[in-house]
């Protein structure tokens, strides 16, 4: 007979993956106490805004296995939505957030439906093309989009009456948004929905046979990633005060993809690590910009070759191996098996 057994408490173990991220973010929120330079704060804000977008990308790529080269375009839709709403309807920051999230989600759907019709690699190129198209449309959009010059976005960001435009305050607000993005993406990953997305990543045919509407969920993942991107776009537009088409063309998209890959797309700490590293590596190493890009490209290649799951997972693996080195051999073997992906899956 079919016996009844309860699954073990996986909620707790899931929480364990979120906790370090929240702790790190809490520490990051304390940084203003050290009176950091304004350059640091400014770069950190930009990095944080990227990280929010990266959390969307990690749901799309890390969980669902869909690599988009047009993510910056989704951020752009959010940013332009905020700027146009502010210009035409005097909409403030807080109202722009849901509106931009909606607009980016909608755009994601418009891009996603045709792109997902063509699978695999074609998809990547399609998203790339849509990103480029968006930039071209914005560039030729006349006064409505501000054409190549772009749009200004003025108007203070206030929270409970406090002016958030001050760098430190904006920084704290961005950190809060990053935390929210991390929690949201953690919730998705650990929900049945996240599992569904992973199932699609692993085997679409099997997923469909188990009642999963593969097409709808893939578009759904795309839309979810758009929501993150839209919010990131609003924060960006209000931070910069001026946006223009080139900021959202294909190369920024490539950089977003690189960041998420460096950090590791599947883990909750990945986007955070990737976003921070890419923003601060050239700063910290104090390299000449040309050299720093070379170093950075080489690092990326090394990470992908040596730690294909991303930096965070790789470091975790090394760490576990070190921990395990004290234990009996048998157990160590199993530990490692669990963390290697089978290179060959029977079909």
């Amino acid at each position, binding site marked *: 007979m079919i016996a009844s057994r309860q699954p073990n408490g996986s909620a707790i173990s899931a929480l364990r993956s979120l906790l370090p991220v929240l702790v790190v973010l809490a520490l990051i929120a304390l940084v203003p106490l050290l009176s950091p330079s304004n350059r640091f704060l*400014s770069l950190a804000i*930009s990095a944080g805004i990227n990280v929010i977008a990266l959390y969307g990308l990690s749901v799309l790529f890390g969980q669902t296995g869909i690599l988009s080269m047009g993510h910056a375009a989704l951020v752009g839709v959010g940013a332009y939505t905020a700027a146009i709403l502010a210009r035409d309807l005097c909409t403030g920051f807080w109202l722009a957030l849901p509106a931009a999230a909606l607009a980016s989600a909608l755009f994601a759907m418009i891009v996603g439906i045709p792109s997902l019709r063509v699978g695999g690699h074609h998809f990547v190129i399609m998203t790339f093309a849509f990103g480029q198209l968006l930039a071209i449309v914005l560039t030729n959009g006349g006064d409505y989009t501000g054409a190549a010059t772009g749009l200004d976005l003025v108007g203070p960001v206030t929270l409970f009456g406090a002016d958030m435009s001050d*760098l430190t305050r904006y920084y704290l607000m961005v950190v809060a948004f990053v935390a929210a993005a991390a929690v949201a993406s953690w919730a998705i990953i650990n929900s049945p929905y996240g599992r569904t997305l992973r199932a699609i990543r692993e085997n679409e045919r099997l997923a469909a046979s188990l009642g999963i509407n593969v097409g709808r969920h893939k578009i759904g993942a795309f839309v979810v990633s758009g929501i993150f991107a839209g919010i990131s776009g609003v924060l960006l537009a209000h931070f910069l005060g001026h*946006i223009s088409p080139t900021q959202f063309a294909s190369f920024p998209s490539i950089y977003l993809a690189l960041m998420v890959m460096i950090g590791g797309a599947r883990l909750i700490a990945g986007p955070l690590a990737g976003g921070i590293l890419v923003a601060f590596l050239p700063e910290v190493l104090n390299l000449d910009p*040309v050299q720093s*890009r070379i170093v950075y490209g080489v690092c990326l290649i090394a990470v992908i070759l040596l730690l294909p799951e991303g930096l965070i997972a790789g470091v975790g693996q090394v760490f576990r191996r070190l921990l395990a080195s004290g234990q009996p051999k048998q157990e160590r073997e199993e530990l490692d098996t669990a963390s290697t992906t089978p290179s060959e899956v029977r079909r």
Partner: protein
Amino acid sequence: EDNIVKIGVVAAESGSFVSAGHTLPAGVGLAVKQINDAGGIKVGGKTYKLEMVKRDDRTDIATAIAATQELVRDVKVQAIFGSETHDFTLAMAKITQPAKIIHFAGNSTLAKILTPDSVKPGGEDHYLFQSEPQEFQRSGSTASGVLTLLEPLLGYKPKKSVMIVGNDATGQFLSSYYFKALKAEGQDVPDIIFYPPDTTDFSPFLTRAKSLNPDIIHFWYNGDSTLTALPQALELGAAKSYFLFGVDPGIWKEKQLSADVPVAMSCVPVCWGESSNPKAKAYFDAYFAAGAPHGVTSSVSLLYHDYVHFLAEAWEKAGSFDPDKTVEALLTLHHQGVVSDDLTFNPTHQVTHATEVCAAAPGGDISCSMQQPPAEAPKS
């Protein structure tokens, strides 16, 4: 012990916009050195030396913003120059203006935000200055110069002009003014052809221009693109003569370019390769001696050089670094620079100065002349 005044520079020293970026710190640096060598500036009874603090924006807006924040709040500069990238400058102004930092930038699109309202005391761009003329002035002086210089070389009065324009911020903005200027000169302009900024194959655009049978094709404005496009145009025999915006006769000679038809060129603002402006030679000798490369944008550095001197004079006149007093001084001064003996800012914080236009005869000599800007915008 000398007191130090810091001047910030934000420019692209890496990334895709480098070629323009190098000229900015070079021009500012040269002026700073000249002023310091001459003993510095005297403000309020004390002597100050200038220090240029430059930051690379890596052609990346986040870095440009961070650099500006750093210069304004951490380094505490008295003034900022830059950047060469339009949208970066507009975003930088959002930082410099509330902080009351004098901000010079060359981007002509600044005209969009420099309005009488925004530059008045208390306005949001009170401390922002455009180091280039109002666009109708540059367009007007250029158009009349091009037509005047080409007419004798063509042997008849050109009637039909076609513009080929890069589809980026500068191109979009500038072309409408140049179009009007050409019209005001009596030209028939049947088409403005935009090309994507990274175009290298101009032949389809040129063939289209050729089909309109123009007397002059005007390449407006990107010097690098122009140099790419010209040989293709000559190959296609696209027009009876050409105008290359922003290509210096120096480049023309260095690259050993030649054409079987007349070619006009213009420099922003004065040419370094061949010039009718006597003061310019001394400047460019010093500029290149300092190690700056010969390039299509080299002459732009001259503007920044002049405005550093201009600013220094303003500080001396104001007797203070107080930004409001500095602005007042800048608006009332008549500065003697290389570009012009009488540099002044107009009520919307833009300057007026001449543009140098040259023309190369087929296989022959180059002649240049400074073109004075029109006083008023053409009525369209």
